[in-house]
Structure formats: C-alpha cells, structure tokens
C-alpha cells in the first residue's frame, strides 16, 4: 500500500466530505449576527410576556384586535355595518366574501408550498435532499413547476370527448374547496357552521367521484378508464366506513355541528381518538382511499396504470389534478383534527395561542402522517382494498356504532362527573377494538405465522432431485 494520504476517491465522495451541516454553518456566522439573533429572541420573549399579561387580564376578550379568533373582526365589522344602517345584504355579503377569501387563501397558499413540503419531507424519509435549488431551501420549486406546466403544449387526445375532457380538472377542485366550509378554525371562525355539518362533509366528499370518473372516461384511454373505475369503486365503498365512523362520533357527541363536536371535546378534555380508536382509524384509512394516497393510491397506481385517471392530461391540467391531491390531503387532515383530535382546542392552550394555529399544527401532523405512510408502505391491490372495506371495516364499524349507541345513552343519563364514564369508555373501546380486530382477522383466515415462512438454506446442490430431497427432508 502506498503512503500517500487518504483522499475521497470520487467527485461525489469529495462533495459529501466538504458538505457542512446546518449547525456548523450556523456556528460560522459572525458575532454581530449572533448578537442580533439574541436581541430578537429577547424582544420576542418580552412581547410574549406583555401579551400574556393582557390575556390573563381578560382585556382582550372579544375585542376586534383579538387575533386569537379572527371571527372577532368580522363580528365587529358586521355590527358596525348594521349600526350604520346599510342594506342587510351588505354585511352578509361582506363577511361571506371575507370568509371565502380566507378559505381560498388557505387552499391557495397550500398549493403554493404544499408540493415543496411533500417532496421535502418525503426526501428526508428517503435519505435524500429534496428540491433545494430554486430559491431559499428550494421554496420556489412549486412556482417553477407551475410555470413549467403552464408553458407546456396542450395535448388533447383526438378521440377524447372535448367537452367532458375540459371540465374535470375544475370539477375536482370544487369539493376540495367546499369541504372547508364547516371547519371551525376558532370559536367564531367557521365559514359555514351548518347544523348538519357532518352530513355536509360526507355529501361534499361524494362529489369528488364524478370529476374522477369524467376525467377517466373522457380521455378515451384504457389506463384512464381503469384508474377511474378503480377510484370510483373505491370511493363508493369507502364512503360507507367513513359514514359509520362519523356516525359513532355524532352519536357520542350528540351533534352534527362541527363546532359543537369540537366544543364537546374541549369541554370534557377528551379527544375522540381516545374514546373511539377504531372510528379514528377507519376514518384515516378510508380517507386515504378517498383521496388516493398511499397505501390506497390504486386509482393512480404509477407502476400499474401510469397515472390512472389523469394519464391523458398534460400541462397545467395534470398539475391541477396533482394540486387537488395536496388540497384534499390537508382537508382530510382538518377533518381528522376536528372530529378526532380536538379541533382548534388543545387542553386550554387555545387561550394563549390562536386556535387556527393549533388547527394548522394538527393538520400538519396528520399530513406528516400521510407523507410518512407514503414513504413507507407499498400499495394494496384493488380486490384486497375492497375486501378490506366490505369484510373488515364495515362489519366492525357497525358493531362499533351499536356499542357507541349504548355508551351514549349511558352517558346522557350519567349524573356524576363525566370523567369516570369517559375513562371507562376509552378503556373499554380500546380493549374491545383490539380484541374485535384480532378475532375478526383470525375468523377471516389471517395467519401471520404461515405468511412469514422464509427461504431455507440449501442442504444439497442439484436439480429437481435435490429439490425434492430438500422438500421431503
């Protein structure tokens, strides 16, 4: 061996050796900047103390500048308009437009950074960097992507149904935006606080099927049609478990109004995921099927049917389909947070931090879970998924609904503090769920010990005779 010093042998290894971590880069910053950062942190702390003083004092509650609940602003605006004597339609329309603007900015803002977040987080799961070239940390990557997609030539299959071909990218966005209506972001921040909010949610989610189907049918491509039929079949099947899971929620909380459901959870300091673990799981799993995410992304299974129902779409139309997936993911995150994770409340933390930030954090958590699943799990097959819905989720959900009905009627008649029945229900439901799932799975013929049988080491080398000898012995 030669005596020369070791050096990275290939250009890539050299690059890796020269790469500095974020901490090292931070330590290399000049003293002035460090002092500035320290000052900034101190200032933030002081201002937080001041805010805390005002909040404890109660002086902030319900004022228009109380940004913990943006509903205060619209409320004051509306009462001011009524005092001024405008036509009754004016405050109505103004607040409606403000709310719509809010929802659109949430969805639109997410579309701006969503694909960056997804790709970046996924990249971390896959030990790579993710987009980091365009702008700081690659943040402008979605914009660059969108510009590129818009510049692309519009390719329409000659045999496509022109009228129906153009509609789906738009149709499919409607539920992704309308679904945000009843989500409560804070005490008064709810655009459409329907008293049939749960039904509304289910109804809106059932609208997505049509866009998918029309996209697949009008493209006049076998891949598209296969993807569309798979998606439609799956959405129709998985709407039932979703409805049953939400029915359990409605039975226990006694309301179909989303804000009441959140208030119920805040009131008893009990997230419904603890009380109804199976419903939460069903909802999460079925939602991944509804919005076409791994492990249930069979509608656009890349390795099988290329891009599923939007195979024939190019340019920004395909971009819209991908965008709606992102939008749906956070919508489902919001639903999951609202129904099962306490919505905008966090055991009293909502007094200090704006509720919409808490909800956003919860949405982020659920979304992170989605990306995690996408980075980890393979995909189910269509028949396995349908079987899972019909043979597993639906029967168990029905049993759960019966159970919850009994529990709800006990709970309604309970006199003493609610903690005892709720804790009992939580333990009972968890235990029953585990036992039920285990027994039902075994009844369906699930046998892990057989499935995991692994290859053995050869004891002989040869052809068929050796194989038979090994099998026999």
């Amino acid at each position, binding site marked *: 061996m030669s005596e020369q010093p070791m050096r*990275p*042998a290939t250009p890539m290894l050299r690059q890796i050796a020269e790469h500095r971590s974020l901490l090292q880069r931070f330590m290399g910053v000049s003293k002035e900047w460090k002092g500035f950062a320290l000052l900034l942190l101190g200032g933030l702390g002081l201002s937080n103390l001041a805010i805390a003083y005002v909040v404890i004092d109660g002086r902030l509650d319900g004022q228009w500048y109380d940004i913990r609940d943006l509903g205060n602003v619209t409320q004051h605006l509306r009462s001011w308009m009524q005092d001024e004597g405008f036509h009754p339609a004016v405050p109505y329309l103004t607040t409606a437009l403000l709310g719509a603007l809010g929802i659109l900015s949430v969805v639109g803002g997410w579309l701006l950074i969503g694909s960056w977040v997804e790709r970046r987080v996924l990249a971390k799961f896959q030990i790579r960097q993710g987009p980091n070239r365009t702008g700081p940390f690659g943040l402008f990557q979605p914009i660059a992507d969108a510009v590129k997609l818009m510049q692309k030539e519009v390719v329409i299959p000659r045999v496509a149904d022109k009228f129906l071909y153009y509609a789906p990218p738009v149709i499919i966005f409607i539920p992704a935006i309308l679904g945000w209506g009843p989500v409560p972001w804070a005490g008064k921040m709810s655009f459409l606080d329907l008293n049939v909010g749960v039904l509304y949610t289910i109804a809106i989610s059932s609208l997505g099927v049509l866009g998918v189907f029309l996209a697949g049918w009008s493209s006049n491509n076998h891949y598209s049609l*296969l993807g569309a039929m798979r998606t439609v079949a799956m959405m129709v099947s998985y709407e039932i478990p979703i409805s049953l899971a939400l029915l359990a929620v409605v039975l226990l909380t006694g309301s179909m109004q989303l804000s009441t459901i959140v208030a119920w959870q805040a009131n008893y300091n009990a997230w419904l995921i603890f009380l109804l673990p199976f419903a939460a799981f069903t909802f999460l799993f079925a939602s991944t099927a509804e919005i076409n995410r791994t492990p249930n992304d069979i509608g656009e299974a890349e390795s099988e049917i290329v891009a599923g129902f939007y195979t024939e779409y190019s340019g920004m139309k395909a971009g819209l389909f991908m965008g709606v997936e992102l939008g749906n993911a956070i919508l489902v995150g919001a639903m999951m947070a609202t129904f099962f994770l306490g919505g905008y409340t966090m055991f009293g933390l909502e007094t200090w931090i704006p509720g919409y930030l808490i909800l956003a954090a919860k949405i982020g958590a659920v979304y992170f879970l989605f990306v995690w699943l996408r980075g*980890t799990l393979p995909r*189910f097959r269509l028949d396995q998924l349908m079987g899972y819905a019909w043979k597993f989720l639906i029967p168990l959900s029905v049993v759960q609904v019966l159970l919850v009905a009994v529990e709800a009627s006990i709970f309604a008649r309970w006199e003493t503090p609610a903690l005892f029945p709720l804790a009992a229900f939580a333990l009972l439901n968890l235990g029953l769920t585990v036992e039920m799932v285990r027994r039902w799975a075994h009844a369906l013929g699930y046998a892990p010990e057989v499935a995991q049988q692994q*290859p053995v080491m050869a004891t002989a*080398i040869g052809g*068929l005779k050796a194989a038979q000898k090994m099998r026999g012995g």
Partner: protein
Amino acid sequence: MNSTAEPYVLNIGPQHPSTHGVFRVRVVMDGEVIRDLDMIVGYLHRSMEKLAEERTYTQNIPFTDRADYLAAMSGNLGLALGIERLAGIDVPERASYLRVIFAELQRVASHAMANGTLVSDAGAWQTPLLYMFREREKILDLFEMTCGARLTTNYMRAGGVSFEPPAEFWPALNELVAELPGRIDEYMELLADNEIFLARTRGIGIITPEDAINGSLVGPALRGSGVPWDLRKAEPYCVYDRFDFDVPVGTRGDVYDRFMCRMMETRESVRILKQAIAQIPPGPHKNDVPLALRPPVGEVYSRVEGPRGENGFYLVSDGGPAPYRFHLRAPSLINLSLLRELARGASLPDAVVTLGSIDIVVGEIDR
C-alpha cells in the same frame, strides 16, 4: 372468474414505469384480469452478437457491460473466463480473488436494484429503492475508484483484471462490508414482515420446481421455487470453492420467496466478501496476454452465476483474432419467457409484481 365483459387490449410499454426499460407487453384484459399477453422485445436491440464477430476478444468485453448493464462485472467475468479457457491462459491467484470480490459486490448492487424496483412495483413510493441505492452507490463508488467507470466497468480481462484497486479502496470496502449486514437487517425489518408487502407478494406468481426446470429458469427465480442450483457451488469457478457460504432456497416459489432469496443471497455475498478480503494474497493482478489474441480453433461455453442467474457465453474460434461466433445466454430473456404462463389469469397489479420479481434487464434481453 367468468365475467361476461368484453375483453380489451391494453398496451403496456415500451414506455411504462414498471417494464424496467423499453419492453412492451400487449395484454388482453378482462376487467382487471389478464386473459392473455404478448411480449414484444427488441426495442433495445444493438446487434451485439453480430458486431462481436468483427472485434477482437478483448474488444468484445465492453459488450458484456452493455448487455446486462446492472451487472457488468458478472458479464465481464463470464467472457473473461471463456476466453481464458479457449486460449488456455493462466490467471494469477490475486486476480481470481479480485474477480470474486467485484463479482460479489456487483451481485449485492444488482440485488439491491432488483429488490428495490420490485418493492416500487408493489407500490412503495421508492423509499426501499432509494435505501437500497445507498449501498449500491457505495459499491459503484468502489468500482469508480478501481476502474473509473460506475456502470459499464469493462474491468476483467483475459488473464486477470485491468487495474489493481487503489489504496483507498480497501478501507472503503471494509467499511462497506462492516455496515452491510446492519443495512440488510434494516430492509428485512421494513419489508419482510410488512403486512401489505406480504399481502401483495405471498402466493403471487407461483412457479413450481418442475415448471422452473422445464422453463430452464436460472438464478434467484429458480432458487426461489425451491431448486438448489447455484453455479458457484455446483461448478465452482475462480476461487469460489475456498469460501464457506450457503445457498438460500425458497419454499413456495412465489414472489416473496424470490425477493427473500435475493435478500439472503446478499447476506451470503457479504460472507464471501469477508472471507475474500481476509484471504487475498499479494501478487500480480494480471498475466500478460498478447493484444491480438488468437486462440486455437475450438469452441467453449463458459458460465458464471450472475445476479440474474447463469450468464453463459458461447465462443467459437476459427483461429483468427475475432470470434467466429459469439453468443450470450441471457438469463433475463429465458426467465422472462415464463411470464405469459404466470400472468394469465392474474390481475394487472399481480402481473406487474411478478414481472418485477423475475428481475429483467432489457439490455440483456435484446442485446
């Protein structure tokens, strides 16, 4: 399934995410179920065997890089062994050990690719693939250190190997060999007990030992269906008879068995690598061989156990500097021929996973 729906033709490929190259399948489908399929190959045909008849034996070695481009070292080795047997050339011991080391590294890299793409075909969004590429990357770095190329290595020569590995090669190799078992455990943890993966691969694409032998399958596809046939054991070449290793054999012959066979073979390769590193003697890496080699008139069929199975090379010499006939026995092509039987009656996702488990390389199929 006796559906009354009208069957339709689905054209998969030549550009499709799961055909692993430019390979086309015309499938007659009935709903989601495959009724029949036609495999159409030849999109990557480069007329390799004919071109080889115009080139000297050494000039033919690069062709083997481009045939099975995921396992160039194994191809190199097979042809080099064939030329040596044809011309009666001796190989120094150190060169044999280097050949074993590089062939086993290539096997690890190729199995990483095969298993990674298989899991991707099953729908995992490329995470296992990229994890396995981490090791493959390091192996390719080792190749790059040694011979300057990562994929088309052109490393083995008649009479030895072309370069002695540089000084930084050995520490890097030791590091890789030390960390590989942990990595394999990691993949096993991620995939071997994964319910979804089991559901997708268990009992899918079953090949019985009889079918496998009748279809003349080779490599992990053969061993996965329970036939313990490995040329490294059955007909040891280089110095394989000096190493202690096992041959994993599947019990059911399904996709999962083929996957696990590859996984476990990777582990055995690491065992071989460790022993080879410990045993490798000093000495020259190459014997001098005339540039324009003129082997005596004759024919030879040399075969090595490549990652995809038996890499066979049939060489006929007419005494001239170029082979009279140069034929590759491509394992992928012959393994692929069973796909039609396997995919008939299966659903489209199952067929995709089955194709992934057969592990084809189109460069080798079309040559």
